[in-house]
């Protein structure tokens, strides 16, 4: 069993290190006089974990709370009351960011129309090219993409209590779209907006899909506001590596 694991680990000559480390830990833990950890150290069972950030009585709704939190994190948002309004808000923001100097291109997830029907056509009408790379392996492609100033993505889910969006990497959903451009717009259908991360964890725990939800994609990223730093004299600076602006558009899903 152990031998299997070592082979699986695909490393050479490490059986000794692995075995010695585990042996030392086991020997240490076997000592009854050990001051710490306690012999009886029960886990936190699922469902026992506290909700760290919660909604408040005065919250008008999930959308308002999300908007308020994101604003505190130096992001911005629109709350649309229809798909049509969502499309309008999205296009308007993108055009504002593109102004007239840079290339009229956005770096996007595939199938933008599945997030907001008609969005791709609207952008096409405004002479904005939607770029969906298939791969970033090629250095030329990478260099080319650097010029794009706006990224457009959906979300796996969003959390109102912290103003956060969870992004999942899949073949159609690049990490780059939310990472490389200076501006990022995230599209949040109402059905994907939850009170907090704990709600999401509990949902998946209940139908036994939590492990899958976490490890099914190579990368999950929780994003809360634009990239920032306070490394210089504790003063806020935005857009250090990731986007300098993050804008969310929340909208109801018909039916």
């Amino acid at each position, binding site marked *: 069993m152990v031998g299997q694991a070592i082979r*699986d*680990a*695909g*490393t050479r000559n490490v059986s000794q*290190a*692995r075995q010695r*480390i*585990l042996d*030392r830990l*086991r*020997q240490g*833990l076997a000592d009854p006089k*050990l001051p*710490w*950890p*306690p*012999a009886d*150290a029960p*886990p936190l069972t699922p469902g026992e*974990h*506290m909700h*760290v950030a919660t909604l408040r009585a005065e919250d008008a709704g999930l959308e308002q709370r999300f908007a308020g*939190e994101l604003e505190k*994190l130096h992001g911005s948002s629109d709350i649309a009351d229809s798909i049509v309004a969502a499309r309008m808000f999205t296009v308007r923001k993108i055009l504002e960011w593109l102004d007239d100097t840079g290339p009229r291109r956005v770096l996007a997830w595939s199938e933008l129309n599945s997030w907001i029907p008609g969005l791709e056509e609207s952008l096409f009408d405004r002479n904005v090219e939607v770029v969906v*790379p298939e*791969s970033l392996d090629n*250095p030329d492609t990478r*260099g080319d993409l650097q010029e794009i100033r706006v990224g457009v993505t959906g979300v796996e889910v969003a959390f109102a209590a912290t*103003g956060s969006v969870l992004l999942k*990497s899949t*073949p*159609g959903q*690049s*990490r*780059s779209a939310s*990472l490389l451009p200076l501006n990022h717009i995230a599209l949040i259908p109402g059905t994907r907006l939850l009170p907090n*991360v*704990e709600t999401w964890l509990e949902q998946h725990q209940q139908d036994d899909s*939590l*492990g899958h939800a976490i*490890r099914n*994609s*190579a*990368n*999950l*990223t*929780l994003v*809360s*506001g*634009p990239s920032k*730093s*306070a*490394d*210089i*004299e504790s003063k806020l*600076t*935005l*857009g*250090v*590596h990731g986007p300098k602006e993050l804008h969310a558009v929340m909208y109801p899903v018909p039916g």
Partner: protein
Amino acid sequence: MRSRIDIEAPFKTRVKQAVANPTLADTLTRATLHLKEQKRLSLEELEAQRLRDQMRQMKAHTLRNLPELLERFERNVVMNGGRVHWAEDADEANRIIGELAERHDVRKVVKSKSMATEEIHLNHHLEAKGITCVETDLGEYIIQLAAEIPSHIVAPVIHKRIDEISDLFAEKLSMPRTLDPQALCARARVELRQEFLSADMGISGCNFAIADTGTVCIVTNEGNGRMVSTLPRVYVAVMGIEKLVPTPQDAFLQYQSLTRSATGQRVTVYLSMTSGPKRLEDVDGPEEFHVVLMDNGRSRMLADGYSESLMCIRCGACLNVCPVYRQISGHGYGNTYSGPIGAVISPLLSEEMARNKDLPYASTLCGACRDACPVQIDLPKMLLNLRHDLVSGKHMPGAERRAMQGFAGVASRPTAYRGTARAARTGTRLLSGFGDRNLRRLPPPLHHWTRQRDFPPMAKQSFREWWAKRSGTRGPAT
């Protein structure tokens, strides 16, 4: 532009240098007070104590089951398509990463802030192989430009003022001088973006990793953690074996505890969770994902009774409340890990032992660190235990043991009285065992221990004044 504090110097000299630099102390006080205030505001609004209790329970459970959790984590990383490497010490970790780099013809590495790689001096090792290492945190990038090492777990350039940074950018990047932080930041973005795009390997530490899913999590505000784990062909995460949490729920509990304690934020900007290399047809992401599980003294710490400190989530809260840290800065500790937690773990980590026998004395035992700690690690108690063990020879060579035996009893005795209402009188009683001459030579811990019990937490005499007086006499712990 070198640091004015020589980190190779003995502890006493380093403190002397730090205290002799008034700008440093002012900047530090301002910055750490700012962080403290932020933290207070955020913690007020939640059930802070419940979070601390749950964290402590979760971390105790993790330690108790660490061998099994490590095996489970390894299995899951492998199932996700990643590789796991075990390193007993710094040399082995460096060798593993060096070999990986060679195998992939790596010429340039981009890194996001990592105490674990600082601990093993990875950059040194890779540079000796002709590999360029670029630190990509804004703070660390500045540090690297200035050829220094970080002074604070969370905010590495906390000791530098903006005009000094501007001078540095002018000198190294030929940038016109400016006092606008945003302009400096924008310049660093451009410089570093080129590095990300041209690097062959990304290396990060790990804030925590999920045993149940084989997921490595890194927490950043700037986004460089995402960059190093996304853009280069090969991504390597270096983690101490204590960094595991059992489940995704535990991970998000720790994440939120960490952000609140570290910087007073409810969330950081980014939490990147990597479960293996890029999947088939993914647009981007590394082709290879490696995890280096590093012991480097940790399993021995557990066996020696110091495993409470292995619950540390590296939030830096204990640094921000520490009166000693505020006065001597991270460089005064001369080490990767500074502040109260650094004073405990640095002498226990393999390589650093010899240089760090003084560190357990770099504390006033005022207890502020324990109260600030999100895992409620009893740092003052561990410092006392460590002093005791150092003196009794458990961790040190004979000559140093003899030098310290003079105050062995004193240093270890306060534990027996802690928590009693009569702490002030206790202090007096302990002191009465000494004549005048000895009193002058009293080691720092007891000196301040008695003061702190007699007076409110803010000491009447600053560390600076105290040090000025003390350095006139010969302290025993040279």
